[in-house]
């Protein structure tokens, strides 16, 4: 029998995340489609409003967060369909690692995916909508990180459930979007206040909601995930 030492929780999380990123890096389809979706969305939204009636700066926060949420869904949908295709999820579940680590690993990979889409589309938004982002950039990036954690924690969970249902990918938005409401509200309102030059202290209540959401749902989903597996 070969020497073995089953990976601990963190190590297994990293192994799963790295595997997912390797798949994404190999195919790149989900990343480019999500990115293209985001850029197209930014463009289309710009022309959906009359720029003389609504200033771009008023439009931008809402557009930004609606697009982040929907492009995030594209990545999340893929997260468990790669597992489902040849039932690779079975091999993952048969491995001697904690099931929580499978959730956390997939969530970590999804987070990096969403963050990468944001990292490109956020500057694109600033460019297209001519936003004065210089002083607000860091706080907005912080909000983006907090929002991405929330989106991914809930979305990864529902993605794993949705692939096993009759509706498959169609179900994910129906389950996930109501959970994204507080995130989008908090992120959009704080982004617009920050863009209007208000100090970070002004948006603290919203930031607290985001942080609390992240804490509650990362913990709750990690604990609940094994219940969705053991068939």
């Amino acid at each position, binding site marked *: 029998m070969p020497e073995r030492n089953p990976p601990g929780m963190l190590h297994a999380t990293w192994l799963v995340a790295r595997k997912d990123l390797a798949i994404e890096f190999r195919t790149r389809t989900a990343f480019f489609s999500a990115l293209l979706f985001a850029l197209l969305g930014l463009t289309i939204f710009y022309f959906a409003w009359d720029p003389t009636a609504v200033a771009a700066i008023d439009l931008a926060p809402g557009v930004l967060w609606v697009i982040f949420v929907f492009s995030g869904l594209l990545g999340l949908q893929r997260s468990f369909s790669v597992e489902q295709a040849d039932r690779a999820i079975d091999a993952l579940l048969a491995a001697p690692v904690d099931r929580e680590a499978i959730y956390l690993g997939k969530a970590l990979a999804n987070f990096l995916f969403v963050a990468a889409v944001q990292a490109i589309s956020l500057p694109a938004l600033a460019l297209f909508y001519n936003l004065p982002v210089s002083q607000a950039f860091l706080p907005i990036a912080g909000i983006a990180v907090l929002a991405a954690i929330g989106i991914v924690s*809930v979305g990864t*969970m529902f993605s794993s*459930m949705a692939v*096993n*249902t*009759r*509706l498959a990918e169609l*179900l994910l938005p*129906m*389950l996930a*979007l*109501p*959970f994204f*409401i*507080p995130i989008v*509200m*908090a992120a959009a*309102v704080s982004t617009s206040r920050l863009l209007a030059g208000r100090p970070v202290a002004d948006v603290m*209540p*919203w930031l607290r*909601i985001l942080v*609390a*959401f992240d804490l*509650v*749902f990362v913990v*709750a*989903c990690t604990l*609940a995930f094994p*219940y*969705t597996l*053991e*068939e």
Partner: protein
Amino acid sequence: MTSPQQHRSPLGDQLAVAGSVDWLVTSGFLALAAVYIRAFAFTPPEAIQGPAQRILYVHASSAFVALYLAFALMALSSVLYLALRDEKLDRLAESAAEVGLAFTTVVLLTGPLWGKPIWGTWWTWDARLTSTLFLWFIIVGYLVLRGAVDERGMRARYSAVLGVLAGLLIPFIHLSVYLFRTMHPMPLLAKPSAPSMPGDMVVTFVSGFFALTLLFAGLLRARYRIATLRDLIADSEDQH
């Protein structure tokens, strides 16, 4: 899991129950009718709002039932299901969600009916109405999920997980919706020191709560029986 020998008699019992009159549902509807007879014939209309105010007796009570009874019951039985794995709890969650959807829909329909004459608009993104709409979306999502899973054990686990997460979501929805803005009249009975409603109205209002709670209990029990019956029939079909 019940053993095969036990099946025949519970199914028969359930079928017998299904054929009889449900007195709980009947009395719920009668009580609701009584409240409205009282509201129209014996309770004076509100001075400023006029007759539109009478919708409050069903609107506010339905909101109470939907959020504090139906939704709470769904979330609670979901938690308990994950802990105890008793199919009864899953049926309870299912029934609470479905009956809760009906009550939430009533809230969403009566709100605009009242809002048009009073606020001058059918729909407004007022905090309470918005929360109720989001609640409605969550319950619909929950029921769609239930419909999309065939295997009973998996359906129960999936919906219980969603029920628990939805329960955790509610405070966040309330918080963010309130931070966003609110213009809804604060519940008039919420100030226990001095209810700002005249005595006649309070009596009608409180009886409205009781009537709708009774109706909820009746519908919940009826829906729960349907769920039990469906599972028993599925079990007995599998035996043959």
